């Protein structure tokens, strides 16, 4: 069991490492492709040489970033098989269709037209080139579809039923995969890419202004970047709100962990700033926070759009306590009961398998009936204690706040930059704002990564919510093997990241010294 848990932990670390590196590059690709598309459209419409130069400059940065994003993305897809092979079997049937769509529609579109984007100047017409640039942007966004639909499905598994004969889930409703959770997640991720790329473009343009180089180019780029960033940020916030509602509905334990909330209430406030008490457990009487500043009604409004709504805490969820709209306490299925039902589902599946081996139809039917009654908590059957079903609270709590605080800061920053660009162009002279925009750029990545940490750490210990914990999703490889590949990935990704950042800096520096104004 210890060795099993070590393999699980290292497999999780490896997947987290790959995902975190991958997400360093993907949002910039998603957003920069749109910004380049806007600039090239301006070039084709106006014929202006300055737009062409701007397009080519940002396209060169897009190319540098695109390559390493492709590399890390390849690994993510195949790690489902190499490190999470049980998962691949258990739910592989569900992902077939979105994966087919993504492969056929998005991957080929992206890879075909990106070549035209880089090498098509002078080889194809202006309009064909522009179409290729936009098709690359569209392909890049659709490329995110499968992984985000898959991710959303893991958090809210719908559109399938369990087939005991094959011991796996099979899809029975394709459209159910595009649930509210999936739609919110997809647009939240894509628009956050616009926001990140917008902040990046504004930051680099600010550096040009600070250095007093290519000022016209910098102001033009900052405008496109700020508008794209602001649009992306507003839509990210809108879809983030939708995501919070979905989490409250389908993953109340994650929401409770995000808030560090153990005992919930109606009119539940939201902790704006606070320190969670590391000694707090669901079954002891310690305080939840070492200190906190709360926004009254905040969590009820955020999660249910109703200031009176009851939000359960970790202890409530474990004990199966809920308060309904009229204020009465009602019982839901507590975690001890879920574990019992999960074990019953396991027993029923065992009985089904035995009956099938001797073709005992009536025993099979009886076992299947019991299985269906208990299947919704199948994953709890792997646990011996309710403690195993509680996610890490501290990291989820802090990551959520990092994401929200930084997101709000960037919203204000982008508004300020836009105001500065349009009101007597004071942004051109506001050194302090240029410096803030420049220094802020890395924090946008922290904001973006923090969002994923909330989503992924907060849903632990599940690979598939309530059905498959991480410990039952892995491959039968040794701990030493996974540790070796973890460090191999860590080394190679870091080596390549160093090169990527270095090339980016040199490319920006080189661009600033050439005439990009006209």
């Amino acid at each position: 069991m210890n060795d099993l848990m070590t393999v699980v932990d290292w497999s999780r670390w490896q997947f987290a490492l790959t995902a975190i590196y991958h997400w360093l590059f993907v949002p910039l690709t998603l957003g920069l492709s749109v910004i380049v598309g806007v600039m090239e459209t301006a070039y084709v419409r106006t014929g202006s040489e300055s737009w062409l130069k701007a397009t080519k400059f940002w396209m060169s940065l897009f190319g540098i970033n695109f390559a390493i994003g492709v590399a890390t993305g390849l690994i993510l897809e195949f790690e489902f098989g190499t490190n999470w092979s049980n998962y691949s079997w258990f739910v592989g049937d569900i992902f077939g269709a979105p994966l087919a769509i993504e492969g056929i529609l998005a991957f080929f579109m992206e890879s075909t037209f990106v070549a035209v984007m880089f090498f098509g100047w002078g080889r194809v017409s202006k309009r064909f080139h522009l179409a290729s640039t936009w098709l690359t942007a569209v392909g890049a966004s659709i490329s995110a579809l499968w992984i985000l639909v898959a991710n959303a499905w893991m958090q809210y598994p719908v559109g399938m039923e369990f087939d005991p004969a094959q011991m796996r889930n099979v899809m029975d409703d394709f459209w159910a995969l595009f649930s509210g959770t999936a739609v919110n997640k997809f647009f939240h991720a894509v628009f956050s890419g616009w926001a990140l790329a917008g902040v990046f473009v504004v930051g680099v343009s600010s550096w040009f202004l600070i250095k007093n180089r290519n000022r016209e180019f910098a102001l033009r780029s900052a405008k496109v970047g700020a508008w794209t960033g602001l649009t992306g940020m507003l839509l990210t916030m809108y879809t983030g709100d939708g995501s919070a509602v979905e989490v409250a509905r389908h993953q109340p334990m994650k929401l409770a962990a995000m808030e560090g909330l153990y005992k919930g209430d109606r009119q539940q406030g939201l902790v704006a700033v606070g320190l969670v008490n590391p000694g707090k457990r669901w079954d002891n009487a310690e305080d939840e926070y070492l200190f906190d500043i709360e926004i009254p009604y905040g969590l009820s409004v955020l999660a249910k759009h109703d200031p009176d709504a009851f939000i359960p805490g970790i202890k409530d969820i474990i004990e199966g306590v809920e308060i309904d709209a009229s204020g009465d306490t009602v019982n839901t299925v507590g975690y001890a009961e879920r574990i019992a039902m999960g074990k019953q589902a396991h027993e029923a599946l065992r009985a089904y398998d035995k009956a099938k081996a001797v073709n005992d139809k009536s025993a099979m039917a009886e076992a299947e009936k019991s299985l269906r009654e208990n299947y919704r908590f199948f994953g709890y059957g792997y646990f011996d204690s309710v403690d195993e079903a509680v996610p890490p609270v501290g990291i989820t709590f802090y990551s959520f706040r990092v994401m929200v605080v930084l997101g709000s800061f960037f919203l204000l920053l982008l508004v300020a930059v836009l105001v500065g660009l349009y009101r007597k162009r004071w942004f051109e002279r506001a050194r302090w704002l240029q410096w803030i925009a420049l220094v802020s750029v890395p924090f946008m990545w922290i904001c973006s990564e923090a969002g994923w940490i909330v989503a992924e750490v907060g849903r632990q210990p599940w690979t598939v919510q309530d059905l498959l914990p991480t410990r039952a999703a892995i491959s039968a490889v040794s701990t030493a093997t996974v540790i070796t590949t973890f460090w191999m990935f860590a080394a190679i990704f870091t080596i390549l990241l160093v090169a990527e950042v270095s090339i980016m800096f040199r490319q920006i520096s080189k661009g600033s010294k050439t005439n990009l104004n006209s």
Partner: protein
Amino acid sequence: MTLELLQNYWWLLASVLGGLLVFLLFVQGGQSMLLGCHDNMSRDLIVNSMGRKWELTFTTLVVFGGAMFASFPLFYSTSFGGAYWLWMLILFSFILQAVSYEYRNKMGNVYGTRTYDSFLFINGCVGCILLGVAVSMFFFGAHFTVSKGNLLDNSSPVISSWVSTHGFEAIFNWKNLILGVAVLFLARTQAAMYMMNNITADQGFFDGLKRRVLVNGGIFVVFFLWFMAMLLTSDGYTVVSDGTGTLTVEQTRFKYFHNYTEMWWAGLSLLIGVVSVLYGIGRSAFAKHCTGGIWYGGMGTLLVVCSMFWVAGYGDTAFYPSLEDPMSSLTIRNSSSSKFTLEVMSYVSVLVPFVAAYIWYVWRSMDRKKLTPAEISSTDHKY
């Protein structure tokens, strides 16, 4: 549509993707020539010719993997989780490739152009050989067992288990390596043929490519014939029904030879494919100025690889034989997705001709103007 028909259809699509992938490995073949190339302009021409197609090969690999995951998830689960090191080494080599084209000539790339060229060389050699090894396991089997009941074993809930070497045993199996080497030299041959078509340079460069076609093509033919001789004389595994619905997997002598003779269309595809590849090699190597050899080679490669997939998967054949427990062997019947999923994906696959059409259109538009040393010297975006 019946489940069987859908399984056959998706195996057909997987075979076409596999065939296209092997054809597109000419990119890796070109990369494998880099370290032997001491002239800077020649190296730049190779890199920039291959570099404009690398995403297509990469994407085809990803889509091939994705299609197998989607249509035959038990294969994906068993092979990737089991032959861990084989797939990891393939993936590592492709990570190196993905960045090397873009970074090799950029200022500030930290490690220098030669390092990135070495990465491309590693991907060129290792990628081809190991993909060949992975395909060879479709015929010569692997050391794994599948027991779905393990899902309920709380201490070790993994359904597929593999020998502890986790793929190294496959890499060092000489039978698998024969196909790996054949794939490498096929890729090198096709790379030379592609460059004859894609690059306009001096006669010396062109003659050098002709020599490469001849030498690499010759080595490829030797290893390919060796592999085919092994394949046609080796045993395979057949799924047999006892008439009561119980299925068993039995070892069958000369299984693949019988499959080729019983499935005449697979044999015909193999024959036409081999002739086409040989014609492409012959024309490219011996005709005075043939630049179209790549199309004969490519079409032939597609047909040969498809025929190999067909004899591996059709005719009640186990396409992933287990050498530990024949009953664990994977077939297109026991490893596929459900009828519902295959059906939904089949509707999506209607778009394939449209995708193929735009890829072809873009390929033609981009390759109409040949790559020249002058362009390499003057372009602002080169690899």
